């Protein structure tokens, strides 16, 4: 068994173990796991509409996961995806409403506004980290709260005291008539292509460019990077800014695709925090993020069907998801057993 196979097997086995333990939890709580998982399956793949909605749910997870993974690969922990997403969401909505432009200008403008807003939000912790060595985890967490309440206030200003910005102009929308027609009018939109393009972009930056080489180098060893003539501070800030832009785009997906507006929120969306788990599931690689986002998006959306079809409370699914993450996080144990099994095979 090559290293590659092991790397793929670990998350797969984690998912299976997670589902098994989840089944036990359902049994113990007096529900039928087979019925439950059938409902879950139907919730994800049951019909064209479910599939469309599942992919729609995956889209922001992809970008949130990329944001965390990118920062992590360069030695930073971006807990601020949630806040960056919220400011991106607002920025995209605002541009979508306030301007009336031809689509080929308006839509890119709104998307870029979201990316810039997220980048700007992440710039602050990056700057503080680079110049004053303030830990980015603390700053990004605090920036989440600031983002939540600031965007709420701004939405009130924009809507004259209302709690919703109103629907964006069609010229800024990612809505897809084609997707609607094939998925029975689900909210699936063109944003999935943007998200996948960003996966490619992350891979390209990290693996192909001198910038990526510098970012990784600074992430691993600041001193050697300085010795090699790299600008360490610039790279720390750049890393946060790129991560923030990914998160801002996740906000644009919600603003321009799923919801078509921004509304006052009582709390966080959770997408940003789930992004941490997505990145973890995907071992912080671009391809892995796709895996993590698909898993997360599917479970989150499919779970909504479990109360309807099987009468199982949605909390059970949260537990199953948590158990899967738990097994991935201690993937070391699974790796250990795989390698042991491997050795036995070789010995024979």
């Amino acid at each position: 068994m090559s290293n590659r196979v092991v790397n793929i097997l670990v998350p797969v086995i984690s998912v299976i173990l997670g589902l098994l333990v989840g089944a036990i939890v359902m049994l113990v709580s007096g529900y039928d796991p087979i019925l439950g998982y059938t409902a879950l399956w139907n919730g994800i793949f049951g019909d064209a509409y479910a599939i469309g909605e599942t992919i729609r749910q995956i889209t922001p997870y992809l970008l949130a996961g990329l944001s965390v993974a990118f920062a992590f690969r360069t030695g930073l922990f971006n807990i601020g995806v949630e806040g960056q997403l919220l400011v991106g969401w607002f920025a995209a909505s605002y541009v979508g409403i306030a301007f009336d432009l031809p689509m080929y200008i308006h839509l890119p403008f709104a998307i870029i506004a979201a990316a810039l807003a997220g980048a700007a939000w992440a710039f602050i912790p990056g700057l503080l980290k680079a110049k004053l060595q303030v830990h980015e985890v603390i700053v990004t967490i605090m920036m989440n709260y600031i983002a939540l309440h600031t965007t709420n206030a701004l939405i009130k200003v924009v809507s004259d005291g209302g709690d919703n910005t109103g629907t964006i102009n069609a010229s800024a929308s990612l809505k897809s008539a084609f997707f609607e027609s094939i998925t029975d009018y689900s909210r699936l939109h063109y944003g999935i292509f943007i998200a996948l393009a960003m996966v490619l972009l992350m891979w390209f930056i990290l693996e192909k460019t001198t910038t990526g080489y510098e970012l990784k180098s600074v992430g691993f060893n600041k001193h050697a990077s300085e010795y090699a003539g790299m600008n360490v501070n610039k790279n720390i800030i750049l890393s946060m800014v790129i991560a923030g832009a990914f998160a801002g785009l996740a906000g644009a997906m919600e603003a321009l695709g799923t919801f078509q507006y921004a509304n006052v929120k009582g709390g966080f969306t959770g997408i940003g925090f789930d992004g941490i788990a997505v990145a973890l599931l995907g071992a912080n690689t671009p391809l892995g993020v796709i895996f993590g986002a698909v898993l997360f998006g599917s479970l989150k959306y499919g779970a909504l069907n479990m109360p309807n079809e099987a009468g199982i409370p949605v909390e059970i699914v949260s537990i199953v998801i948590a158990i899967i993450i738990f097994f991935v996080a201690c993937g070391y144990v699974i790796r250990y057993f795989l390698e042991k099994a491997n050795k036995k095979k070789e010995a024979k």
Partner: protein
Amino acid sequence: MDYVIEMLGIRKEFGSFVANDNITLQLKKGEIHALLGENGAGKSTLMNILFGLYQPEAGEIKVKGKTVKVTDPNVANDLGIGMVHQHFMLVENFTVTENIILGNELTKAGMVNIKDAAKKIQKLSEMYGLDVDPNAKIEDISVGMQQRVEILKTLYRGADILIFDEPTASLTPQEINELIQIMKRLIQEGKSIILITHKLKEIMDVSDRVTVIRKGEGIGTVITAETNPNELASLMVGRQVEFKTVKSEANPTDDTLVVKDLVVADYRGIDKVKGLNLTVRKGEILGIAGIDGNGQSELIEAITGLRKAKAGSVSINGKDITNKKPRKITEAGVGHIPQDRHKHGLVLDFSIGHNIALQTYYQKPISKSGIMNYKKVSELAQKVINDFDVRTQGEHTPARALSGGNQQKAIIGREVLRDPDLLIAALPTRGLDVGAIEFIHQRLIEQRDNGKAVLLLSFELDEVMNVSDRIAVIYDGQIVDTLLPKETSEQELGLLMAGQKKNSNIAKQGDTTHVE
């Protein structure tokens, strides 16, 4: 003959790489047995097998005549084998006692019984003349003391057989002497010791017998009293080793590096370099001799742009580079083999190939308009690996996995291949074996013969005397004298390094011939 440990015909493979092949090591009771080999020869692998961290593919281990299977370090502990690691395994903000009992706590009614443990440790410490305070915090005691804590840890766990892994690598000469005394004391008390090292002098000083391994193969065991450093060196390297570096006369020409009235402060803001003047010319090696802490590090950091100079100037080929960015200085023609290879020299989590591109990644042909050309990185890496004899499984191996000597060769390869006008080599041979040292010295001399300037910083007088064409003695942030190696002696240098003034009779050639 009663052996306490016998490792017979040990073989260990990592994939297709054979780390140990047919190695036999027999440790007698009450002896200090040295295990000698080059960096990367497989010494650590062999000891990790004995300590239960690796399982051998072939061979047998006997402890006190009985065949055993050491499946993990706990088994080794139970067999009375203790290891004093090169990199200490201590919790910095715990006390000595807390560190020693960690994982093996004495308890009284469910509570850790620190008091009794401390008493026991005090007793052990006295018995072996270790002089360790059981209540001191690790972060407050010297490196030499920390090592004694490691020794106590093994004794506390009842070890009879102690493995010392490169114990002198981070010690001062004074501490080395003390360690040797401690080892002799341990033997008197009936312990047996395996000493892993590549320092021939130590082997001659303390060991009873020596087992030599070369490139993973067991070469044999010799009795220390019946051998000499020359023989050991050639057994280890597999050929004759020249201790005296052969080189022709230097032909220095124009000034390359000129340092004028330089003042540099350390990280606390205290001046460490105090109005220093220095010149290195094309075609010569200038060695800086001095005791650690007299401003050497700050001097080199200021020249290379890693630290700001407070006053004075530095120039390369007449071009002022004072307080320029490191990259500007590199591009002005400076190559730098840094003092701390793990901190500055390498990105340990990068592959060795990526590390070799560290100084040139942004230039053609390694990259073009921001896009890396990893094929060219590969070619460059292969060239360094081949030309500089970097022993690695391949360019994709993480730098962390290489032995110290091979890491250093990779850094030197990277810097020398750029063919800098000035090559700064700070402690280039620290922790390396004689074979690697010889190789590195030759490379420095080659640079010089090609008409380049070389600035060598070393704490080893031998090295300074052997390699340099001129020696500048640094004391308290100033060059107190510049001498020619053949016109001075270690005694004279030693006095100068200790701050003894003398009436200089040798012209301070380099220091007065500034080109304005």
